[in-house]
């Protein structure tokens, strides 16, 4: 049954920090950067004292920075006290789940103007400790005890996907190549360069040093080189994995009656879905995330649109396999066919179904709690046709979608936006 909210809700401002590794900045300071950009993005301005509540997505502030109870602390740094500051934790979906709670709090009549976003500061920890922290999001008594890391869970889906549909590791690599190409056009991206650029820069460096010069023929050849692109959890290699990142993103969500006070080019949240599933072994299929199918179904029904109506999407490509699974789960492609679409270039920036124009988590970076909000920031720019070099070349842009996954699919949060 399609749900209708008691009040319409729209986004009237969006901002993000640069994503990357910033040793001298903590998550509070990154969130202030995102907040300042968000404030500047509100066409007709706002007095921040009018913000009535703050939903803050934070997956693991305790582990990364030794700081729990982060919502009021962030509220303090943003000058928002004493308003309600609520922390939401749904692993890597925390940012978009925060935006959903903002939407619900407005539709309820409790608030009219609500800030939502996320921030994460991951680069302080060693890779092993980051691996442990992310592994905490899998089920400690079945998956973690089996030695699962985060990449392992997706890598397992990848082997099942290859066996079931005949995809090869090269198809995963193509996703990475595409997303790096997009990220090369995004100044906020952690990897602001294509894989070809990275390869060539390594060749230049080797020449500069006067040592052995690598003989990679092309990007694919580079990605097949265990030295350049080592296995993390086979078949996922380094360039199949999103990086360890610091960053923050936030949006301002308001009630429909107030929208025009802030902008004439808002993004209405016309559909929203949220669903859960159990550990990998308890799922109906190993090549699809049921939470994503359920959540997208909810969102499409609420919005009254179909997958083919969506013009641009940001999907959760924490690993390259994840983007393929996402494209199928949200109904853009039939099960087992997404890898062919990528091979054909259908999801490139200038393809018929552009996916992750921002560069995705793979290239833009994946400060886990910020990522879901960062996806919405990208859709904000794309639908308002303010995305610069990476603007998708589609006429009459109106509908965008974000697909944000928590952990390895235990949560999926889908939002559909319409520019009006």
């Amino acid at each position, binding site marked *: 049954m399609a749900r209708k909210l008691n009040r319409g809700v729209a986004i009237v401002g969006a901002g993000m920090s640069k994503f990357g590794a910033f040793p001298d900045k903590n998550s509070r300071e990154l969130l202030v950067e995102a907040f300042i950009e968000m404030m500047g993005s509100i066409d007709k301005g706002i007095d921040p004292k009018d913000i009535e509540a703050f939903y803050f997505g934070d997956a693991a502030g305790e582990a990364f920075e030794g700081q729990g109870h982060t919502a009021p602390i962030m509220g303090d740094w943003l000058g928002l006290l004493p308003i309600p500051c609520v922390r939401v934790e749904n692993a890597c979906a925390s940012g978009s789940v925060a935006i959903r709670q903002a939407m619900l709090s407005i539709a309820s009549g409790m608030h009219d103007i609500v800030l939502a976003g996320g921030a994460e500061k991951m680069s302080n920890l060693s890779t*092993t400790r980051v691996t442990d922290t992310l592994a905490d999001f899998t089920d400690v008594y079945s998956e973690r005890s089996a*030695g699962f890391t985060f990449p392992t869970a997706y890598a*397992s*889906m990848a082997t099942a996907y290859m*066996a079931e549909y005949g995809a090869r590791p090269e198809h995963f690599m193509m996703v990475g190549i595409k997303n790096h190409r997009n990220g090369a056009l995004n100044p906020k991206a952690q990897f602001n360069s294509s894989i070809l650029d990275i390869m060539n820069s390594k060749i230049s460096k080797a020449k500069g040093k006067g040592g052995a010069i690598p003989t990679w023929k092309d990007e694919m050849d580079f990605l097949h080189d265990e030295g350049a692109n080592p296995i993390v959890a086979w078949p996922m290699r380094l360039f199949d994995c999103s990086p360890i990142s610091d960053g923050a993103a936030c949006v301002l969500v308001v009630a429909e009656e107030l929208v025009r006070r802030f902008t004439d080019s808002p993004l209405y949240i016309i559909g929203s879905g949220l669903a859960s599933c159990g550990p990998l*072994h308890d799922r109906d299929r190993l090549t699809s995330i049921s939470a994503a199918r359920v959540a997208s179904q909810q969102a499409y029904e609420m919005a009254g649109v179909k997958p083919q109506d969506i013009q641009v999407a940001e999907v959760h490509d924490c690993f390259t396999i994840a983007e393929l699974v996402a494209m199928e789960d949200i109904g853009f492609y039939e099960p087992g066919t997404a890898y062919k679409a990528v091979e054909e270039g259908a999801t490139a920036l200038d393809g018929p179904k552009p996916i992750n124009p921002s560069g995705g988590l793979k290239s833009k970076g994946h400060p886990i709690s910020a990522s879901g909000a960062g996806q919405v920031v990208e859709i904000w720019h794309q639908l308002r046709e303010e995305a610069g070099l990476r603007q998708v070349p589609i006429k009459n842009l109106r509908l965008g979608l974000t697909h944000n996954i928590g952990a390895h699919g235990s949560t999926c949060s889908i939002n559909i936006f319409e520019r009006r």
Partner: protein
Amino acid sequence: MDKRPFTIASFDQFLAEGKFMGMKCSKCGAFRIPPKPMCSQCYSTELEWVEMTGKGTLSAYSCVAVGTTMMVEEGYDRKNLYCTGVISLEEGPRICAQIIGADSNNPESIKIGTPLKVGFVERGKGEERRTYLAFNP
């Protein structure tokens, strides 16, 4: 019939005794491994312990070069990968477990559909040392 409570603590105790026990709902027949104190299918608390045959097939896997601290402490690293995955059990349910005795450094040699048999593996140091579920080809 074993009367232990349907808790993770009991499941771990069984593992330490070398037993792979599943929780089965007496009402609807659903399996839950590891166990839950209430059937998540039909909400019944009439449950029973069933010793699993331990036979299954490999449904999904990965060979891991960058492991968690627990696995790193067991000696696994970029040169010595471990294999873990999802096993479909003869009785129907699936479970995640480490796959021992697979050629983990040659991931492409491992085939989905391979028949597996339950085994057990000990990991951890000192007081933390425990028995974990594992499978062998």
